[in-house]
């Protein structure tokens, strides 16, 4: 929660507002995701999908994956080990 999530929300909304619909989020430096972060991810996923886009996750930590699975949203996302593979999947 807090400034980190607020900043991410602002960046994502601005990008979506500019017409971007394909997003890759590299979570390698994110040790844990709380419920506020999860809420942002799924809401943003829904918004991008409505516009024909997607949000894909790269290198989430084991604990982040566990958390996403616990609340039942892990399968909503495509997960990749590296940025290149995620970018290629948008082709």
């Amino acid at each position, binding site marked *: 929660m*807090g400034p980190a999530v607020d900043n991410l929300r602002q960046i994502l909304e601005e990008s979506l507002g500019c017409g971007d619909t394909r997003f890759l989020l590299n979570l390698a430096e994110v040790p844990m995701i709380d*419920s506020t972060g999860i809420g942002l991810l799924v809401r943003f996923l829904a918004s991008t999908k409505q516009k024909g886009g997607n949000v894909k996750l790269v290198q989430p930590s084991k604990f982040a994956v566990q958390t996403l699975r*616990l609340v039942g949203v892990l399968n909503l996302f495509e997960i990749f080990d590296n940025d290149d593979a995620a970018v290629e999947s948008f082709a």
Partner: protein
Amino acid sequence: MNKPMPPDSNPGRPENELSELLNIGFLADAAEIGKVADTIDETLIELDVPEQKRLEIGLAVQEALVNAVVHGCENDPSKEVRCRLQSDPLGRIVITVTDPGPGFRPEALADPKHQENLYADHGRGVYLIRQLMDQVDFEHPGNEIRMWKY
């Protein structure tokens, strides 16, 4: 953030008695949550709690503190949240978070895993706490949560 109270040192305590490790009061400001969570994590490291358990406890505590600040105190920095970290002789950890709010009914919360709720932007905090901790109790009227990790 108020200075945490020192842990007690009573080696002769009965088996069911909890040992106080931290007792922190802080004003309901979201900026304080991270500091409290860090203090708890540092204490758990000193207790040699394994990393996976520390992560699970840390996230559950963070969720409880956010609920206390946002819902219990309505982000009013004139109100205080209290967080206690205790352990029992078996090494089980118990964390209690209390706020001055009116409480709530945890049984009235929607299931975030229901299809219609999967894309909701909120409503997962208490559910996550229950999944991460081994036992969770809410004291009436719901402004105190006690979370156990075995």
